[in-house]
């Protein structure tokens, strides 16, 4: 497969990128084990794998962030040593990171030349960059206003700036790390059009993602990684999502959640005209109303940053708000001193926060200290009025670790030493095992591997079947569609409409997510 046979449009040139026998270990963890892969020129090559499979490590080696313990890198057929990102750029490799590395209050043009200025004075560089940038934009459908400030651009446009940055540095090989995480479906489609365009102009694209649908949509060939090894490289046309999922996890996976139709009971959580302002006085939630009933899952879809995080934080007691929220028919205080995480837990609201690392867990606390976090006032965890009952907490933690199959089952390990999926399981175990009346869940499977996703989804559905009210916030449309009984879409601090899950689809929700009000659907 070293020959560019599939494309047919390339002469028998050397592959754009060829990795031979790459290995990399971090202490006892073998992140990459003897990986060989070759990516043809003018192809879109996908790399899929669970979190921790070693995709990012491999790309970091290619981009010069890490040094491989063993193995060789060939760029266009020549052995290349890449000690740092400067060398990667010199070799024609460009990277678009998952989290953009842009200066918010600089203009597009300034960001593009940042680090690639020629000479001490800016003016000549800027002038040269402007014309070059306009050429690039025309050539690849990458239109952005060069004088606009980054902070005024949408996420999709910011991503284009990242791509332009790479192209401006003459990148022939573009690596994109989870590029669609922050995009609406239509923005993602546009991105893939751009990528195809770049491919047709002879650029080589490496697309790292965990979304199988994108692999199927956008790539020519795909490599699957599992536990640091490259398990397969196949033509995209010859494979299918279930087959890829199986290759990723090493066993058959349920991509769809198995669940019975909901049997909604009475209203557990009633929200009316909820408004939230952030510290800067900007209104993040502009008056929303909804109900969640016992025994149902209400999914809130939307592109990140449209007020969903604030919604969870208000209901979880972290940020104050105005409006009216009723739990079990009793109004709860939204502002003032008596509104905090403790008062919410006392009302039977459990909260699995969107960001487990900054909210849900204390990363340098051990697992057992985290397993009572938020419930540390609970009588069952107190030895007497003064001392906490550490032995009881330990016992409780060990039971939770067993029930949720948390690995390694070591309650004395710090939270930061667990994988993302196991960290999430610690949070879920803590919140679900409280048997709450209402469960708030934010991004339950972000950064979680497929095997764990299946388990986490099952737990949430089981809780619903036990008659609990569940509010699910997720930016993954697939997750919303497979878990929720009803879906509401949030855009710019407002709810754009509510749908019964069985009567809607990705296309309709995608339009709502982009702020387009549906034609009386």
């Amino acid at each position, binding site marked *: 497969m070293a020959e560019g046979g599939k494309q047919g449009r390339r002469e028998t040139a050397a592959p754009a990128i060829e990795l031979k026998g790459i290995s990399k*270990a*971090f*202490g*006892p*963890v073998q992140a990459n084990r003897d990986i060989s892969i070759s990516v043809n020129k003018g192809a879109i090559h996908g790399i899929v794998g669970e979190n921790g499979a070693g995709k990012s490590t491999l790309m970091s080696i290619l981009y010069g962030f890490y040094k491989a313990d063993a193995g060789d890198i060939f760029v266009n057929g020549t052995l290349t040593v890449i000690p740092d990102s400067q060398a990667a750029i010199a070799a024609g490799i460009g990277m678009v990171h998952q989290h953009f590395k842009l200066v918010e209050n600089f203009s597009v043009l300034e960001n593009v030349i940042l680090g690639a200025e020629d000479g001490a004075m800016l003016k000549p560089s800027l002038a040269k960059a402007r014309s070059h940038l306009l050429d690039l934009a025309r050539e690849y459908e990458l239109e952005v206003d060069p004088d606009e400030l980054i902070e005024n651009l949408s996420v999709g446009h910011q991503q284009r700036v990242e791509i332009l940055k790479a192209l401006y540095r003459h990148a022939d090989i573009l690596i994109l790390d989870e590029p669609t995480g922050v995009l609406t479906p239509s923005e993602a489609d546009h991105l893939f059009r751009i990528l195809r365009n770049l491919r047709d102009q002879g650029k080589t694209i490496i697309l790292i993602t965990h979304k199988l649908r994108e692999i199927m949509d956008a790539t020519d060939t795909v490599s699957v990684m599992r536990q640091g090894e490259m398990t397969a490289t196949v033509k995209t046309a010859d494979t299918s999502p279930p087959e890829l999922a199986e290759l990723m996890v090493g066993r058959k996976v349920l991509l769809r959640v198995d669940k019975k139709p909901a049997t909604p009971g009475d209203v557990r959580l009633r929200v009316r005209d909820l408004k939230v302002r952030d510290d800067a006085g900007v209104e993040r939630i502009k008056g929303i109303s909804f109900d969640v009933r016992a025994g149902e899952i209400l999914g809130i879809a939307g592109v990140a940053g449209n007020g969903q995080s604030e919604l969870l934080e208000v209901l*979880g*007691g*972290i940020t104050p708000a105005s409006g009216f929220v009723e739990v079990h028919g009793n109004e709860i205080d939204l502002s003032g001193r008596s509104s*905090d*995480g*403790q*008062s*919410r*837990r006392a009302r039977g609201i459990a*909260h699995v*926060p969107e960001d487990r690392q*900054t*909210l*849900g*867990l*204390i*990363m*340098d*606390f051990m697992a057992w*200290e985290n397993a009572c*976090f*938020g419930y*540390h*006032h609970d009588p069952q965890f*107190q030895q007497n009025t*003064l*001392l*906490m009952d*550490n032995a009881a907490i330990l016992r409780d933690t060990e039971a939770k670790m067993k029930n949720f199959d948390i690995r390694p089952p070591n309650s004395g390990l710090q939270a*930061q*030493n667990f994988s993302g999926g196991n960290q999430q399981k610690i949070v879920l175990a803590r919140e679900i095992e409280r048997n709450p009346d209402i469960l708030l869940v934010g991004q339950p499977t972000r950064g979680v591997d497929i095997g764990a996703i299946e388990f986490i989804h099952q737990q949430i559905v089981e809780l619903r079947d036990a008659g609990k009210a569940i509010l699910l916030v997720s930016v993954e449309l697939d997750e919303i569609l497979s878990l929720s009984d009803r879906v509401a879409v949030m855009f710019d601090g407002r709810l754009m409409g509510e749908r019964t899950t069985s009567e809607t689809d990705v296309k309709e929700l995608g339009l709502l997510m982009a702020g387009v009000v549906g034609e009386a659907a």
Partner: protein
Amino acid sequence: MDKMPRWADVVLVPLINLTLAFIAAGLVVLAIGQNPFDMVFFVIKGALGSTTGIGYTLYYATNFIFTGLAFSVAMHARHFNIGAEGQAIAGGVGAAIVLLAVPWPHWTLALPAAILGASVFGAGWAAIPAYLQARRGSHVVITTIMFNFIAAAIIGFLLNGVLKDPNTQNAETRHFGQGAHLPTFEEIFAPFGDGLFKSAPVNVSFFLALIMAFLVWVLIWRTRLGYQIRAFGSSHTASAYAGISAFRVTIYSMLISGALAGMLSLNVVMGEQERLIKEFVEGAGFMGIAVGLMGRNHPFGIVLAAILFGILNQGGFELLWEMPGISREMVLVIQALIIIFTGALVHMTRDPLERFFIRMRKKRA
């Protein structure tokens, strides 16, 4: 994920730092034409060579345990309390007021009262910066250091005014009286032989400091308040999620910190001077920062670090007698070098050592 063994972190790193500090100090001593090995010898001999020397060492260590604990309790909540100096002064005023107000019949009664007076005043002095931090967001680093100056000014005002002993020219209170006399080690150990700890100022406050170290350990690792303090110190956002009140944690941790700093006065004011004098803290408040850092904010480590700094303090003073070529300023330079190496430059040696251990492990694997 990758860490060096705990023993290396806790024992080896401080030892290497200490060695480096002595090398640096040795170079300085060499530069002024003195023998660095003599220096080390006389420091150790002065601090540990006699029970009197040990008595002085433990006396200084007592101060450093109190201020080191004070620093560490606030530090667990990520509040950088550098106001132990001022809080200790306030504690001294509190202890003096209690001890002067009542003609105490016996120290066993006077000590609890003095503990109360010292800790309430010390905590009270920390309360204002704590409130300003918790409600107004004024950084405690700024406010506590400013409060040190205010405390120094106030104690001068009091000792030249209402608290002044009219029978002397000095800015000091009258003697607290025999009923407030704390047993010294010399008195305590008299049954075991003559001349033990002869004329050393170390007294029962040393045991009080050890008890406080144990109580701080209980507080931080066994109580709910300690759990909340540590959680808040590690992550403000997660604490908000859990419903841990930032206000309460800030106030409590700072009050406890101030109270511990205030207790330094029991050792110096009540135990040694037996009257309130103006400059009794003598930098022990700031030394507490180095002690807390070197002791990794763990009470056990703080006790060890405090004893080490006690050795350096006492040994340093002895140097003045034994090596006339070394001036008082030079002793301060040497102490400062040691603080810099053991406190401020911890990561200079820690990180390379960690890499070394990781490489060793890989080689073995």
